[in-house]
């Protein structure tokens, strides 16, 4: 049993997340490696939402299409996941469970036939009777459902009850009734024989892992990296990042500002970072559009700034609560004029934590805007990760002058001094040193406005040299390869000499599905079927490093670009820099991530077919 997938579905606001949070946390504490993936519409109550959990024998980072169980909170959810359909990507596998609480529900004859053919086990929970017996309100159905699932997975009640208790630690009066509801759901026995679902083997090491969303990890990473101020304006999928740093502000002392708009959020953060703190801002594409004039200004005044750009499908309001990788062009081209910048992308919960410090170090070293891309998938998926290792974090403030003897030796014209690497000394207001003018007009080294030919040229060259300096310093993309019969992934420092049958190229959250599939392909049962597959993952997207790509591409039998956008945006940049056009492309732009089976089957097929027509 390589993975078990179950999905809780219903209307938004019915308590899907509550059931999911309880069950996933309890599973993790029991040593199961669990991954959570949410789908929901852009509204508060109603619509159709789903929270899917995939439990693996190793790391799981992507959702499957085939489901072992569906728990439907409303009747719409009952028929949606039977068979492959246009409504939902996922469906029940042969022998799957369909659990529901819809009274007097009658399946159509066709549905009944399908249920019989597919040996789907339909289980009805008389939730209203159970609630009545408990004299409990409807909201308690969440705990009943959670406990029923818990029993179905063959687990022990006390651990689940402990998690339930923790959920109500601030509402102690509600604990007792919730514990009773848990018992009710756990001891319920449906009609007929219902065999338990066998989960993949648990491991003790996973019990102490974190179960954390990407946005929570970015928030923790920001706190850890010394970010002392966060500004934002609510916009999915960045809102929950604002929410997390706001929730923890009394513990961290961070200044939180929900601004009147994204222009303000960007400018306030820029003003604060200019003063020498680390003030971060985050948004999604539409909000980032408004921030772009600030990105340009940061480029000019050479102040450090990190922008988190959480992608969701556009254009315009687009598909607000779904995922995409459609804003790479936006990040690379944002802002008028030419100036150096760094664009990097988070891929999962782990680098969500570590890349914040990295982004700030780059921003301060090169005194440039850094755009940290993420997306709805990363932002809201639950990742099962070992606790973050703080010893890996370095705080590098670059050429920031703070020592009094060095400050007193500064001259005002040192601030934008023309240097070989383009980087000048930086000091901040309040420092006992000569002041300078951080001028959004073109300027001489002390910030005085100039429109003369030579200083305009010199200053442009100075700034753009930082881009060259940065490009030299950035690492080449990481290579992951499938080892024969060993599903371990190797990130090779010197992997350019690999002769690959298939070279995959990608960035961002797509890495999750790719790594899951690479592990699958490395299993003995798949030996030789897909050939030797490697995945070249770009964390640093601009400036773009291409040497490893060129070397690997030259030796690979096939190169396949995989991106969650329409144009293959990374592919466009690679072609621009190398002249190499990647002809085989797996592109997805329907708001959904690459699902596990979808990518696996694409790679097992002799030729590539589009993942969706």
């Amino acid at each position, binding site marked *: 049993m390589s993975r078990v997938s179950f999905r809780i579905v219903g209307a938004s606001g019915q308590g899907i997340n509550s059931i999911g949070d309880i069950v996933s946390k309890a599973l993790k504490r029991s040593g199961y490696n669990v991954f959570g993936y949410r789908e929901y519409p852009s509204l508060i109550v109603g619509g159709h939402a789903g929270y899917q959990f995939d439990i693996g024998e190793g790391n799981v980072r992507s959702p499957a299409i085939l489901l072992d169980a569906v728990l439907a909170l409303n009747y719409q959810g009952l028929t949606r996941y039977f068979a492959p359909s246009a409504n939902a990507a996922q469906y029940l596998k042969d022998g799957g469970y369909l659990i529901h609480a819809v009274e007097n529900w009658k399946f159509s004859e066709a549905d009944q036939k399908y249920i019989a053919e597919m040996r789907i086990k339909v289980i009805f929970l008389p939730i209203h009777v159970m609630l009545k017996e408990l004299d409990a309100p409807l909201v308690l159905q969440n705990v009943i459902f959670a406990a029923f699932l818990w029993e179905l997975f063959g687990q022990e009640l006390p651990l689940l009850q402990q998690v339930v208790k923790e959920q109500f630690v601030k509402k102690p009066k509600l604990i007792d009734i919730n514990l009773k509801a848990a018992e009710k759901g756990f001891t319920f026995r449906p009609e007929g024989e219902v065999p338990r679902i066998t989960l993949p083997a648990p491991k003790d090491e996973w019990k102490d892992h974190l179960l954390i969303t990407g946005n929570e990890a970015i928030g923790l990473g920001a706190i850890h990296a*010394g970010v002392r101020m966060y500004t934002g304006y609510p916009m999915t999928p960045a809102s929950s990042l604002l929410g997390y740093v706001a929730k923890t502000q009394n513990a961290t002392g961070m200044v939180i500002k929900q601004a009147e708009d994204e222009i303000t959020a960007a400018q306030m953060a820029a*003003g604060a970072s200019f003063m020498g703190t680390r003030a971060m801002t985050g948004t999604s594409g539409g909000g980032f559009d408004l921030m772009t004039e600030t990105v340009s200004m940061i480029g000019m005044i050479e102040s450090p700034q990190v922008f988190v750009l959480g992608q969701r499908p556009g254009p315009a309001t687009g598909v607000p609560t779904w995922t995409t990788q459609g804003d790479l062009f936006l990040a690379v081209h944002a802002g008028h004029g030419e100036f150096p910048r760094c664009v990097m992308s988070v891929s999962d919960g782990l680098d969500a934590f570590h890349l914040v410090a990295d982004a700030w170090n780059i921003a301060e070293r090169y005194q440039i805007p850094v755009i940290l891309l993420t997306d709805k998938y990363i932002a809201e998926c639950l990742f099962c990760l070992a606790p973050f290792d703080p010893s890996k974090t370095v705080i590098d403030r670059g050429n920031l002058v703070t020592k009094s003897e060095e400050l007193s030796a500064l001259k005002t014209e040192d601030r934008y001094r023309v240097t070989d690497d383009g980087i000048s000394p930086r000091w901040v207001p309040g420092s006992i040193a000569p*002041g300078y003018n951080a001028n959004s007009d073109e300027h001489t080294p002390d910030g005085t406005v100039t429109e003369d030919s030579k200083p305009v040229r010199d200053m442009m060259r100075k700034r753009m040299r930082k881009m060259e300096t940065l490009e030299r310093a950035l690492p080449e993309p990481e290579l992951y390869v499938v080892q024969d019969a060993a599903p371990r992934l190797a990130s090779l420092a010197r992997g350019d000499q690999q002769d690959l049958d298939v070279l995959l190229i990608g960035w961002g959250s797509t890495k999750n599905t790719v790594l899951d599939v690479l592990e699958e392909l490395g299993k003995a049962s798949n030996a030789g079927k897909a050939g030797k597959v490697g995945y070249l993952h770009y964390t640093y997207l601009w400036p773009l490093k291409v040497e490893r790509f060129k070397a690997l591409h030259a030796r690979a039998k096939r190169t396949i670009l995989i991106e969650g956008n329409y144009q293959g945006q990374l592919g466009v940049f690679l072609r621009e820099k190398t002249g190499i056009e990647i002809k085989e492309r797996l592109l997805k732009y329907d708001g959904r991530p690459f699902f596990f089976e979808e990518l696996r089957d694409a790679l097992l097929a002799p030729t590539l077919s589009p993942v969706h027509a």
Partner: protein
Amino acid sequence: MNLELRKPTMKDYYTPTECTWCDGCGDYGIWSAIRLACTELEYQPHDVLLAFDIGCHGNMSDKIGGCYRVHGLHGRILPFAAGAAIANPKVHVLAAGGDGATFSEGVNHLVHAVRSNYPMVFVLHNNGNYGLTIGQASALTPQGMVMNSSPNGIPEATINSMDLVFSLAPTFVARGVSYDIPHMTALLKEGFKHKGFAYIDILQACPTFNKQMTNKWLRERVYKVEETAGYDPTNFEKARKVAVDTSEKIAIGLLYTAKDPRPNFYENLVPRKGKTTTIVEEVGKQDVTELMKEFM
């Protein structure tokens, strides 16, 4: 430059960069008053940040030396300066913007700056037009006036700037005129001492493009509230009435200062209560061990 912490003088705010304003421009007076206020308050230049918007006044950013300055984007200086003031409350932050930046391009920022009561001074260079782009109308230009790009007179109604500001519950409102440097200096000093958002409207001559609001025209109309018997600048309703009504006479001076001003934005931040360090000083690796436990 002598960096010892002696009493600062006007020379410490000097730069040889030549001024580029028109003869008779009100910017000269404001330029002098800002430097005088900082000097008289004995602010060390390194403790001062002057933040300028775009426009003729914005070119002041390199006509003042010694202190830290920023010359930002059009309409956006308020949020930038607010971010700066919050990050390091030990630095005295003054932002300046024209009537175009403040009531057209960035009026939303003004609304929220007053409402948020950021700890900073704001100087409105109010000359009733866009000087640098050669005389287009701003939202404060009188309706019907013929301006560059409005040959038939501007069709929009004029914003009553003081009415708008007073509707936002300000904690400090003053008005000066650009030809009266000592008076402006006094207002700026009061503004710097104010703990919240100090809004200072300076009626500024633009001899090139504003032929109506000349210094002569202003002199005939302005009166100082501090010279008016019984004027109480802590009386909000009275101050609002006096500030808004400019039909015959124009009141200048410290028009309103809250007797017991509400806390400024920074003082209202619960996580900052009792903190003696600034968020600039606090940058460094923070331990997140406790925070991680929530996810276990």
